[in-house]
């Protein structure tokens, strides 16, 4: 084990001890004061503690990143390689020093929906749940018309309106900028769906693509085989989620998470690698040498609904 890995493990241990103590204190305070409305002032402190605890729960640190070898840098290489190097650099830093950003070049997007489909496949999204739809709109009136295509992932807002509204503290802002959802804690109230000014959250109604499929194995592929996709596990937030009746993520709010499990392994989000127009970029916005930092600095980079103060982590270029 390298020195670096060793120090990471010891860091983990300290985190865990701190964690359980904090967890105990948190539970104790809430247990005693939670139900007391009169003790509101004390109770108000409780979620702050819980938030701190969540922020400390560092998914990245729990699965230490093992860098893999990338081909040497070459002039004119694909942006994918540069972004992978950017990610590797970022993952060597402590989580709170990175800030994941996405940049989408609207001039390059052809509106093919490849990102939406690959995202659905990566996260095993059921019908009615979508993380990154591509909005297509015609503007102007004939004959002066134009066409806009705008992929819409979760903006991973730095001031996310979806977070404070959650009654169960099931959604929170990670130190690396990603807004995460704890499926095991989410009660499925859908308040966050209403609070998101980008319609970026969808609810898992427990539907299946094969719901109305005929079941005749001799004649067709058969429901069981055709539905294999439905039972495949997804690995969102570095945990295995197998779809079965009533079990999370069914009944939960779901949204794009920048492919957390992939980035942890040093891979780019699925939508970035499958974008046929190379219109989507990803990396650490805190790293001045990263490609996304360069792109964000362009004068024609903008964010959606800037005026409402959500401070999205997703930038667009037009």
């Amino acid at each position: 084990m390298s020195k670096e890995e060793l120090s990471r493990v010891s860091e983990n241990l300290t985190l865990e001890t701190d964690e359980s103590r904090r967890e105990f204190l948190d539970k104790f305070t809430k247990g005693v004061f939670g139900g007391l409305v009169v003790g509101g002032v004390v109770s108000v402190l409780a979620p702050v503690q819980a938030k701190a605890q969540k922020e400390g729960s560092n998914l990245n640190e729990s699965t230490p990143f093992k860098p893999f070898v990338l081909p040497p840098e070459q002039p004119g290489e694909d942006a994918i390689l540069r972004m992978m190097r950017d990610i590797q650099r970022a993952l060597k830093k402590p989580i709170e020093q990175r800030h994941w950003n996405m940049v989408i070049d609207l001039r390059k997007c052809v509106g093919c929906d490849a990102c939406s489909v690959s995202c659905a496949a990566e996260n095993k999204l059921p019908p009615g749940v979508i993380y990154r739809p591509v909005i297509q709109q015609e503007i102007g009136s004939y004959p002066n018309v134009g066409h806009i295509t705008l992929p819409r992932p979760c903006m991973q807002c730095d001031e996310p309106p979806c977070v404070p509204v959650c009654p169960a503290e099931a959604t929170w802002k990670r130190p690396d900028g990603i807004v995460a959802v704890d499926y095991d804690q989410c009660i499925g109230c859908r308040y966050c769906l209403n609070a998101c000014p980008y319609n970026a959250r969808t609810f898992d109604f427990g539907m299946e693509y094969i719901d109305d499929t005929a079941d005749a194995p001799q004649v067709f592929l058969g429901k069981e085989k055709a539905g294999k996709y439905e039972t495949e596990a997804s690995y969102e937030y570095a945990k295995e989620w197998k779809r079965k009746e009533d079990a999370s993520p069914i009944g939960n709010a779901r949204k794009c998470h920048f492919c957390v499990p992939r980035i942890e392994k040093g891979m780019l989000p699925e939508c970035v690698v499958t974008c046929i127009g190379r219109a989507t970029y990803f990396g650490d916005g805190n790293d001045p040498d990263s490609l996304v930092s360069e792109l964000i600095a362009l004068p024609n980079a903008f964010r959606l609904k800037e005026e409402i103060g959500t401070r999205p982590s997703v930038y667009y270029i037009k």
Partner: protein
Amino acid sequence: MTREKMGNILVWILIIGFGAWGLPGMLDRFANGHVDTAYGSYIPWGLWISAYIWLIGLSAGALMISVMTYVFNIEAVKKVGKMAFLVAIATLVGAMISVGLDLGHPLRAFSLILNPNLHSMMGWMAVLYSAYFVTLCVELYFAIKKEQTRGEKQKSIKRILVVLGIWSIPLAFAFHGGVGGVFANVIAKPYWHGPMLPVVFLAGAFLSGGALFATVAYIWRPNQSKEEFLKMMIFLGKTTLALLILDEILELAEVYVGTFYSAYGEGHIWQEILFGQYWYTFWIVHLLIGVLIPLFLLTAKSKSPGAIALAGLLIAGSFLAVRLNIVTPGMLDPELNGIASAWVHSKLTFIYFPSVMEWQVLLFIVAVVMAVFMIGKKVLPIYQTAGEEL
């Protein structure tokens, strides 16, 4: 047959009818979760959330009647305090079932009681409803106890009831104004967002709850003389009328501000409410049945208790339409133009009309509310008001 008997039979027929009609919907809810509902991800709240605020409003209104009895000592409603608690409890139970069934994971909601996020208005709701439920039960207990005791003991119980009654005033304001806050705090929805909504919620709650109580007190009148009964009904009628006028002034203000210059977002929504596909919800169910006819009945010269009770029933029943018109239109506008056609699915639309299953579940919940009231009325000494009042 006495009015009370007739009322009992009618309500039990309704309970059985609604229950039987609603049962398939309940079974569907438990077997298939939310699949057969008409709401989706872009209109995430529908009939059940509207029914929840409707019922919780009725509860808050009934609670205020009990406050009039025990805190303000209003003579006219002296003998109906316990019944007001019972109505408040029954409607609260219905509201909780309604919101519970709306959740993706209802059982997890219990953890909110001890572990709420107090940055969230909805987190506060968990705490406040628990406090409210406990308060109601304790109040009802003491209200019953009060009439079973005499002398010094009765006096001290009365004091307890006053304290509990005073405590329930801010509580009612907090939990029902808070429900308004759940909506009013959502910056993303211009139709909901703003300081007016919690006030509108409160006024509506007191109106609909008071109105419902006028009907209940008419059918199941306590042991009182004819004069006492008339006095009570006229008092309830006057209160309802005053609240109806207040509520309409607030509504007028909302419609006026929302439509006058077609304010951003809101103007279009008001257009939809007033002249859209479901125009009749506003004009017929709300305005005609819920406002104009009751207004006529309440201002009639005859002051007949029956007319007051009917007005109460019309207001309380049609108030669901008011709640529906608060909840669903707020979500009609896409946050980003073109989002609904970006990925097409029945759960990703901006169109909503409750499904048959949603209506069935609502009927079942209404049946439960009525059953809780009827059973409570039977097993608890709600009517033992003959004892000496202090």
